[in-house]
């Protein structure tokens, strides 16, 4: 065996060859799962999309986009445009308005007074500058690729920053609820007895309550800041995690490796957190991936009712909510944020489904 063959066999070091010359691949849970995940095109597509969104969100402050909160009131309701800048759009709009008024008065052309108006506007548009974030800018040369909202803010920037907020809420909310759920579920599952009974009862009662109502009430009563939002969302969503973790732990509790650990004197905490929880990780990972879109939707739902993030911040939900009013005249305010959000939700869902298939292809929870 020369160096080259040894190298090659080291590369494929998890492929053995049986005596009948049949290849046998070694199996490690994560490697195997990754292999399966790679085969799933929808899931990989989802992964790519999620990464793109993540990059956009993280690099938002350094991206060459406009501010999400600076208002140019004259620029309100500008339609999306790839080639025309704000000034041109303003001129077009003014011209159409003047023509419409002229038609009403029986004329089909603009008179001198109106044409003068246009010329003055043209000059103003060419010259006017504003100071934005410390820079002096020719404000009417701005190009709003996705249009503007009711206060003249760039929709593209708002969607990207809104994405930051939405995704952050999704991630933090998920982490919090998962964390709470794991601790409670693991303790209930492992300790059993009275503690388990009490915790299960609490979960059952809370499960039966219309928790969204509770969240709505909490938000409406205690104020609409981000802290309350997290608090409210986290309170109601650890339930499912706790149940799932508890179930897993109960089924694993009596398996042999736990007996083995106990027989060499491992303590309860150690058993729970170093042995049982890692075995439930697969389920938790899948669950978390599917929870993030769920949280985003919850927050959007609240925003729609006016209970979510407040101005000047935006989230996809609040953007859609704003966009619904006036969607007849300014549909882009509804459609662009909606598309951005829906694409992300789809991607997360595909990714989550793919992860579930990859980590446990025979799962009973396959939908």
């Amino acid at each position: 065996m020369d160096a080259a063959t040894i190298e090659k066999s080291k590369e494929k070091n998890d492929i053995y060859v049986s005596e009948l010359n049949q290849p046998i691949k070694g199996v490690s849970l994560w490697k195997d799962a990754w292999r399966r995940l790679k085969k799933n095109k929808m899931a990989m597509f989802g992964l790519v999309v999620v990464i793109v969104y993540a990059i956009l969100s993280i690099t938002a402050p350094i991206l060459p986009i406009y501010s999400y909160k600076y208002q140019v009131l004259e620029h309100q309701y500008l339609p999306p445009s790839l080639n025309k800048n704000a000034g041109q759009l303003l001129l077009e709009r003014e011209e159409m308005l003047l023509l419409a008024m002229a038609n009403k008065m029986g004329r089909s052309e603009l008179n001198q007074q109106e044409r003068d108006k246009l010329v003055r506007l043209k000059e103003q548009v060419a010259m006017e500058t504003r100071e934005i974030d410390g820079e002096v800018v020719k404000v009417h040369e701005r190009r709003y690729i996705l249009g503007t909202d009711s206060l003249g803010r760039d929709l593209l920037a708002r969607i990207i920053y809104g994405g930051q907020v939405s995704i952050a809420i999704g991630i933090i909310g998920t982490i919090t609820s998962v964390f709470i759920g794991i601790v409670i579920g693991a303790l209930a599952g492992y300790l059993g007895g009275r503690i388990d009974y009490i915790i299960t009862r609490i979960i059952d009662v809370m499960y039966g309550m219309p928790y969204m109502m509770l969240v709505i009430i909490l938000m409406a009563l205690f104020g609409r800041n981000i802290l309350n939002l997290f608090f409210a969302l986290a309170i109601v969503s650890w339930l499912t995690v706790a149940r799932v973790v508890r179930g897993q732990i109960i089924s694993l509790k009596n398996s042999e490796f736990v007996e083995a650990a106990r027989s060499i004197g491992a303590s309860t905490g150690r058993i729970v957190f170093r042995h049982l929880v890692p075995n439930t990780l697969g389920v938790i990972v899948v669950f978390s991936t599917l929870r993030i879109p769920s949280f985003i939707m919850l927050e959007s739902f609240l925003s729609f009712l006016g209970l979510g993030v407040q101005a000047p911040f935006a989230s996809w939900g609040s953007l859609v909510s704003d966009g619904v009013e006036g969607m007849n005249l300014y549909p882009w305010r509804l459609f662009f944020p909606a598309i951005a959000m829906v694409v992300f939700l789809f991607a997360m869902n595909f990714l989550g489904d793919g992860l579930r298939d990859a980590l446990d292809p025979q799962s009973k929870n396959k939908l």
Partner: protein
Amino acid sequence: MTKFVIRRFIGLFPTLFVIITLSFFIVRAAPGGPFDREKRLPPEIMRNIEKKYNLDEPLLMQYGRYILDILRGDLGPSFSYPDHDVNYFIFNSLPKSLILGSIALGIAVIVGVGVGMISSVRQNTWVDYTAMSFAVMGITIPLFVVGPVLMYFLALRLNWLPTSGWVTGQHGWVTIIMPVVTLSLPYFAYNARLSRASILEVLRSDYVRTARAKGLREIVIMFKHVLKGALLPVVSYLGPAFAGIITGSVVVERIFRIPGLGQFFVQAAFNRDYTLLMGTVIVYSVILIIMNFIVDIVYGFLDPRISYS
């Protein structure tokens, strides 16, 4: 079987009690009262108002009084709409919400299971793929996107349906189409996926293999052997589905301007209108609890392992 029903029925009351009590105290714990306006009212007037509504009594007394009132069926006066009491608002708006919700649930179940069945029988064909893709869309796209988008295309651009209003108005039952479709979509989609997966799993089970080994026809196997077991997860899901429909109705009623119970819910919270808010919470909770009860019973009915144990 009857013992089972009775046992479950008795269990309803504690839950309801907990909900009422919790809501009562949470609502009162919030900052701000029902009569805080932007301009502060003179103290004597405030005192009179508080006396009239018993707000000056200790909290526990107010609680006791409230429970007694409920038992008599009186949900109290509305603090923000002084001309009417809570019962009035509820009786006028509840039927509309109920109709909306029930039809939505009905569609979600019947159409959902139907699609799931067809998908499972035609697994991995184009029928399956289209149906499941559609289902994924239904689950992922939020209600408040679907509603406005539907309204945009069907009502504003194509003018096929009216944008708002309710059945008894000038447009008749057509007005109900978009709200119902919007509200039922995510639950129909989930049901389709759920029933498909469940049926597929049952089709792989040992007892279906036995049924085939006995020479039964596939149709007989599907309807006699498979459905009963496969529908259990769907029945279980009915409870949460209905809860979701209730919550969703708040948004759908707002989008399509339907005068149902939902409009009062959020508004009452904002206005600190304790009685109206509590009234709506109680009504929703009762409906939900009854629904869960029915689901429990149906589940017990379908699964002999539960009722015959």
